[in-house]
């Protein structure tokens, strides 16, 4: 590792955590449960999301253990179906969708815009309660027998053929969906109406742009999922015939409605992560993000194109050749704005003063893994190859590269990057760098073999497989174990750092965002005086000027 570092901490012998901050302003459980403070709600979300992540992760561990051997021996095959269904439901609706927006977005958007809070604090709190209600309901369904439709609730399986908790799981997802709608709505209103003086649209950090695009998707996409679930529920309970072929309904319509949300949902998941990467890559290269405007608009372009590619999930479901052609082409198009981002980040690195703190290591992990995940997405967007690959482990590897390799890496990058701002204390650097490397190795060992398994033809969603696939599955399970260690480590040392971490000071990374110009942890009101934005985003010369002014006036 390079010894160079940009970290500048205050003198530890005299430094103190600010006497008044949002964490100690009020005390007691009720002051947290009834709070309107976006930062406290973000912390509530962070705790609950971590909880659900480890439940989903434990289920993933069970799946990998079962697949260690070719026979279905750890659990019965229908138990296996329930385990992978719950893994999908929890990871998607209770971890990936809210992960970055509800924690980091909630915490940072008002700070980055120079506002005192999100526009609708009570709606923000409501959205956390809805999330918790949905999450507890999902756990309840898991304990009382589970559900085995896969996270996609495909009809007519979900409406006619299975006798598991489809209704309660559907309700859980429905409720969690409203939580997501309210978060997105709150962000859009805040970004439109709450910007500090001088904070024009093109001075906003790219993190905010990414969240704006993701919020549009949440607000427009999620209600369609809601109505699709309502129709499935009505079909299961009173037997209406909208998706029932025996009555003239068409199961394909369910697929259209479901994927109209669930494809944009992957952009809901990845866009906020891309926002994190824009911030870290600029800070740790000491450069303005190359092509700021292009990166900002590519987020919006992803949101717009993202609404017109959903049928690529349905190439083998019996849609016409013409729609296959059109959706295949549109799918290629959506790769363009993602590539714009990757190229611009790469150019930001070019001739930058790069340092390798933990957030940057995760960022590099993101860039590599997301690129592989994105490129294999092009294979799957091509209808010819998709037909062969879509029901195999190739697609499992693809979306885990994007979601786990991409989103989760970005989430961890962001958590480490803003940890000093959220808690006022630094995490321990060496062990967290180790965790980042362990995660990267474990991830590749887990999911790269699955690309090979997929091209060899191993189908997904089965508890057993032909013995010739075992060796690669053993690699994958071994990798999952390493990955598990990689995820446990941050929980341990971040908790440790709450008490023993070094005092971080206002701006340990020498970053330019408004959130770094206030104390850590911030005041409940965020800023003493409403800041005035008089410079462009990522303006490191402005930051140097500020420092010089300080030296001149103090010294």
């Amino acid at each position, binding site marked *: 590792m390079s010894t160079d570092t940009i970290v500048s901490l205050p003198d530890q012998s005299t430094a103190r955590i600010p006497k008044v901050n949002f964490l100690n302003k009020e005390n007691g459980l009720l002051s947290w449960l009834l709070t309107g403070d976006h930062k406290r709600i973000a912390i509530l979300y962070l705790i609950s999301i971590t909880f659900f992540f480890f439940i989903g992760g434990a289920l993933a561990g069970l799946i990998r253990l079962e697949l260690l051997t070719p026979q279905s021996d750890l659990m019965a095959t229908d138990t296996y179906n329930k385990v992978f269904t719950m893994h999908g439901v929890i990871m998607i609706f209770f971890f990936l969708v809210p992960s970055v927006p509800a924690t980091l977005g909630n915490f940072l958007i008002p700070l980055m815009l120079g506002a005192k809070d999100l526009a*609708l604090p009570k709606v923000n709190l409501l959205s956390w309660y809805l999330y918790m209600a949905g999450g507890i309901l999902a756990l309840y369904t898991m304990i009382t027998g589970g559900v085995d439709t896969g996270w996609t609730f495909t009809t007519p399986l979900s409406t006619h053929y299975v006798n598991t908790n489809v209704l309660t799981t559907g309700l859980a997802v429905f409720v969690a969906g409203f939580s997501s709608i309210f978060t997105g709505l709150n962000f859009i209103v805040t970004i439109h*109406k709450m910007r500090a003086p001088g904070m024009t649209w093109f001075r906003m950090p790219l993190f905010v742009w990414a969240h704006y695009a993701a919020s549009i998707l949440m607000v427009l996409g999620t209600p369609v999922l809601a109505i699709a679930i*309502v129709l499935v529920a009505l079909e299961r309970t009173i037997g209406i*015939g909208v998706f029932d072929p025996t009555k003239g309904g068409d199961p394909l*319509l369910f697929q259209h*409605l479901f994927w109209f949300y669930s494809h944009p949902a992957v952009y809901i998941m990845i866009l906020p992560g891309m926002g994190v990467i824009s911030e870290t890559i600029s800070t740790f290269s000491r450069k303005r993000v190359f092509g700021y405007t292009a990166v900002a608009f590519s987020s919006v372009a992803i949101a717009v194109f993202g609404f017109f590619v959903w049928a690529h999930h349905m190439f083998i479901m019996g849609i016409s050749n013409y729609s296959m052609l059109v959706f295949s082409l549109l799918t290629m198009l959506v790769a363009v704005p993602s590539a714009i981002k990757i190229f611009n980040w790469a150019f930001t690195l070019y001739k930058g003063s790069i340092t390798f703190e933990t957030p940057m290591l995760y960022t590099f992990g993101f860039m590599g893994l997301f690129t592989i995940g994105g490129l294999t997405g092009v294979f799957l967007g091509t209808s010819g190859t998709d037909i062969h690959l879509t029901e195999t482990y190739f697609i499992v590897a693809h979306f885990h590269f994007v979601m786990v390799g991409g989103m989760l890496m970005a989430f961890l990058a962001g958590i480490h990057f803003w940890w000093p701002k959220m808690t006022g204390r630094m995490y321990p650097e060496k062990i967290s760098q180790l965790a980042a490397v362990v995660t990267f190795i474990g991830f590749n060992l887990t999911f790269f073999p699955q690309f090979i398994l997929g091209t060899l033809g191993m189908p997904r969603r089965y508890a057993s497989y032909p013995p010739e696939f075992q060796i690669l599955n053993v690699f994958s399970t071994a990798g999952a174990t390493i990955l598990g260690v990689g995820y446990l480590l941050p929980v341990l040392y971040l908790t440790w750092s709450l008490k023993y971490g070094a005092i971080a000071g206002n701006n340990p990374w020498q970053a330019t965002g408004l959130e770094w110009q206030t104390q850590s942890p911030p005041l409940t*009101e965020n800023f003493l005086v409403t800041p005035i934005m008089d410079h462009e985003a990522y303006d490191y010369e402005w930051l140097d000027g500020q420092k010089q002014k300080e030296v001149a006036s103090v010294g």
Partner: protein
Amino acid sequence: MSDSPVLVHHGEVEIAHEHPHLPYQRHHFETMAQQNDATNFAMWLFLLTEIMFFGGLFTAYLIYRNWYYPAFVAGSHQLNVIWGGINTLVLITSSFTMAMGVWCAETRRQSQLVLCLVLTFILGLGFLGIKTIEYKEKIEKHHVPGFHYSLQSFLNPDSDKEAKAAGDKPMALDMARHTEVYFSLYFAMTGMHALHMIIGIGILGFMILRARAGGYTTGHITFVENFGLYWHFVDIVWIFLFPLLYLISRHAQ
């Protein structure tokens, strides 16, 4: 979203403000104008999500009506246009009383505001009452989709008062079965609409209590305004549902 007032910044750090704080201004807004702007914008966005929610149903309607047009016509003949028409009038009137309510709140007329809200409340209940009568007819004729669904009215229209009056011809079994899709959509769409009405009426009840206590006549009317938007939205959904479900074949040829 109640507008509980936060008087000034509580806490050690007193912050200098250019603008004086009105009692109903939330602490995190700089000005009242910003607060009203933000909440109104939020309401419009929420209505956008509602449009997407109903959009799924309208998409399904569009597809199946194209596929099974004769079944949709025969199904629509089973609906009671008179009741539906009256209900449309009831709902439009309730939108009028709601709009008057917003005006009364603006001009600080407390007793008239309460009157307008109560009228809206009653008209809303009236709509649901008439809807119940209509649903009851459907249940009695076994037109609710599911196990008890009956094709009698469509296979043998002469045995059915409404079908006979509309001059329906007996349908082939295959097409007649698709009337169940029509009624599925009828119940899903009007049911979702009724659910929105019920939620609206609940909020209206709460607002009447607050208005009696003088809640909305202090100059801060965002809540009434935004609820008005919601109520008009639910009204507009019905304005679309009525012709799509009741009047499919009732136009000049």
